[in-house]
């Protein structure tokens, strides 16, 4: 490490609070509890690794496959939401801090969190003063309103979440392209610094919606619809210098960004180079050798580099093992015989070898933690469940599985299919692991690979296909939109999101009782009660045995050789791209 050539000044990352602390420049470990300079495994997991305020340098990022879009109104990838904070500012954002602090929301464009009235149906935000676009023109609340309105246009901007479509009281308004000349009745802007949202039903967690990149301001005159991604007008500390679709882009400093209006961002490097479409194994090797600063996919090193990183102490010291808010699980289809009987589904829950499931994803570090429910531990309200005890060593309980099979009238087991995404070797390994472990009790699985692009639209996600083709088990994976019960569970346990035309990630859960519980949890104003409601929903879903939880994903990620201020932002489950600098 080239650490010693630089005088290290540790600065607290609690930027909002402004509390600073200092540490010596030669002590090895920082004496501040929230930062460290010691190069060790998990150094950046709950602390800021290698703190520094040094500006300058070109941050080099790479990723193996392109994500949906850099347009803030058209993106649904965690890495993109993380990265978009460099060139856009939303109304609110997750606190830029390591550890549990990063799950708190703070104001970004807005001075603080929203004020709710009308029982949670009206939300008001006040913008900061002195906000400017990259061209120097002022950012007003109307620009924020326009950004949200255009994100409603799912026919043009197809990728983003649909929360605003579902919750705003639109009264038939479709968006600025379709409903030309009309104003959005759900958003009011009485003056340039005030924005008021009207919802069609009370929703207590609206501050999470205000965190979505879609609330970033977009100047109506510069909006080119689906082509806006070719030049996103910056409201953040960096702006686009070049953009080549599918190949990469460069960001340079935005001269009109005023740090006085932005207590959350450090903006240390002079520029960012993002390379898209590099070979995934090559990216790992370049980070190891120091030619790259980070893999922005944030999903960890490839299997080839994993054994290298874990096997060599010098490399392992540069690695972190963050837990993502993601569950890798398998949906159990209760629509096809004999899985229509709960006992037959229970047999699968009991017989599955969770250690093999974990191994399929790369073991305890690269794979994750063995899951007993859907909701991961870092979601507020999480409760440890044990609905289907899988033996003392997580290898499954064959005796109980056989009892369950006898109870459902299939004492010798049965045959069904397991679907997985053909392009994902880890999901193939899951299918093989389940084939082995369920085979112990006579449940015979046939492996059925499907192309990843149409997995939800045409195959496993389409009820007529999965029921007609006897897909009893379907390997599945889900990451939180944000870390709370609604952001994690609503899209995968609400039976009403299942559409006959396909496309839903919810492949198997449709329990009327759960649907009612969701409706109650959404309107619950008390945060603690609401969190408990979601934990109860998780438990109720598990009791129906329609999902087989596998692992709560974690990954082994590598820090670059020259990066400073590295820490895992728990809100994204990956390094925070806005604070990293170059030493």
């Amino acid at each position, binding site marked *: 490490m080239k650490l010693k050539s630089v005088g290290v000044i540790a600065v607290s990352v609690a930027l909002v609070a402004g509390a600073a602390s200092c540490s010596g420049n030669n002590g090895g470990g920082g004496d501040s509890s929230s930062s460290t300079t010691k190069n060790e495994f998990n150094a950046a997991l709950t602390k800021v690794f290698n703190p520094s305020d040094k500006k300058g340098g070109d941050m080099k990022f790479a990723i193996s496959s392109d994500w949906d879009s850099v347009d803030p109104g058209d993106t649904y990838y965690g890495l993109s939401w993380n990265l978009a904070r460099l060139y856009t500012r939303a109304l609110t954002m997750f606190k830029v801090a390591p550890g549990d602090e990063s799950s708190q929301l703070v104001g970004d464009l807005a001075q603080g969190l929203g004020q709710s009235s009308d029982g949670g149906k009206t939300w008001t935000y006040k913008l900061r003063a002195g906000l400017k676009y990259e061209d120097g023109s002022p950012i007003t609340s109307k620009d924020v309103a326009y950004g949200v309105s255009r994100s409603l246009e799912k026919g043009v901007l197809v990728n983003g979440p649909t929360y605003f479509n579902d919750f705003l009281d639109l009264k038939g308004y479709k968006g600025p392209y379709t409903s030309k000349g009309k104003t959005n009745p759900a958003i009011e802007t009485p003056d340039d610094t005030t924005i008021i949202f009207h919802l069609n039903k009370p929703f207590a967690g609206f501050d999470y919606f205000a965190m979505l990149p879609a609330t970033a301001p977009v100047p109506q005159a510069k909006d080119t619809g689906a082509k806006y991604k070719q030049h996103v007008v910056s409201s953040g500390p960096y702006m686009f210098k070049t953009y080549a679709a599918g190949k990469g882009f460069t960001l340079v400093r935005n001269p009109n960004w005023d740090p006085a209006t932005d207590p959350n961002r450090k903006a240390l490097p002079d520029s960012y180079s993002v390379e898209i479409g590099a070979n995934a194994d090559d990216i790992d090797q370049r980070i190891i050798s120091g030619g790259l600063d980070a893999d922005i996919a944030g999903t960890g090193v490839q299997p080839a580099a994993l054994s290298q990183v874990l096997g060599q102490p010098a490399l392992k010291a540069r690695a972190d093992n963050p837990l993502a808010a993601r569950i890798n699980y398998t949906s159990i289809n209760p629509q096809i015989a004999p899985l229509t009987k709960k006992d037959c589904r229970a047999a699968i829950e009991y017989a599955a070898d969770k250690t093999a499931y974990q191994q399929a994803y790369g073991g305890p570090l690269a794979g994750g933690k063995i899951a007993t429910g859907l909701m991961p531990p870092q979601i507020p309200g999480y409760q440890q469940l044990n609905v289907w005890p899988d033996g003392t060593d997580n290898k499954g309980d064959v005796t109980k599985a056989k009892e369950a099979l006898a109870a459902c009238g299939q004492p010798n087991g049965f045959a069904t*299919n397991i679907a997985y995404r053909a392009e994902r070797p880890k999901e193939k390994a899951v299918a093989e692991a389940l084939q082995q472990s369920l085979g112990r009790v006579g449940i015979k699985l046939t492996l059925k690979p499907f192309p990843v692009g149409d997995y939800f639209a045409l195959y496993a996600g389409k009820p007529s296909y999965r029921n007609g083709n006897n897909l009893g088990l379907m390997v599945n994976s889900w990451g939180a939109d944000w870390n709370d019960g609604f952001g994690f569970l609503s899209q995968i346990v609400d039976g009403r999101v299942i559409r006959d035309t396909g496309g839903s990630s919810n492949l198997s859960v449709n329990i009327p009782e759960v649907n009612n519980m969701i409706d109650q949890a959404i309107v619950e104003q008390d945060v603690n009660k609401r969190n408990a409601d979601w934990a109860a929903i998780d438990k109720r879903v598990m009791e129906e045995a329609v999902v087989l939880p596998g692992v709560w994903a974690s990954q082994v990620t590598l820090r670059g050789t020259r990066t400073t201020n590295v820490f895992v932002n728990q809100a994204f489950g990956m390094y925070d791209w806005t604070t990293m600098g170059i030493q």
Partner: protein
Amino acid sequence: MVVGPGTSVSDQVPVGREPAEAESAPGKVIEGRSLGRIAWTRLKRDKVAMGGGVVVILLILMAIFAPLIVKWIGYDPNAFHPETIDPATQQPTSSFPFGPFDPKHWMGVDLPFGRDIFSRVVYGSRISLLIAFLATLLSVLIGATLGVIAGYFGGWVDTVISRAMDVFLAFPILVFAIAIAGVVPDKAFGLQGDALRIVLLIFVIGFFNWAYIARIVRGQTLSLREREFVDAARSLGARSGYVILREMLPNLIAPILVYTTLLIPSNILFEAALSFLGVGVRPPTATWGGMLSEAVHYYTTPHFMFWPGMAIFLTVLAFNLFGDGLRDALDPKNR
């Protein structure tokens, strides 16, 4: 992809080198020594070809007795051995020849589950050889039949069959194989699972490769048709069927046999390529190509790739060496 093996068996009558002085003489002089006996004598003298032949026989025995072999010195090819994977590093503790030797898993184990590579290589030979042999048999049956018909009858029959050959030679068989493997249902023709996929692969590989052998047989037939013994048979009133079966076919056996042994390795490679691309036999059934495909994700642990790669290499090499020797021994010019 599947090109006809670059054989020297062309569709002309081979005008190869003159036979070695002594060799041709006994064939003509000593009555009672059949073509087969002569060829066998020559083949025995060719050490390289015999070496290839021995390996081929061993491979066939290995494929046939795979269940017994893994019962004695291996494991169920799909069984997991989690105890052989170090949880901290996700590296197999046994990975000979690039890591520590483990007598229990002497070719090492794969990731992520620790399946025994030796057992998988042994079982992989069954799929490879079964598909390669049967696909070759199918190609030879179709190709030899159509080739001899085209060559013997000539005229419009020849034109139709020759154009069909051109079409099949121009056919993008790899693309077709990938497409058909994607759309084929789970159950068809009363078969399902692995059996259906194997039959499908045999059909795809075999059916689209007949044109090469048909061309060679047609060429040979064209020249044989003008030979005196054929004329003699015809003038004695022999029907076409008799001439083809009794007069022509025995003289075509040699090129067909040679071509067959050279088509087999080409088909082994093609099957491996299809499995590598994920359109062969479905996992977890062990195939050499499939093992290679899985090994790519773990290129830092090269023994995953080494053993199945070695198996394919040795098999193809052995068949090619044996085929070359056989061709030399059966050189039609020395008949």
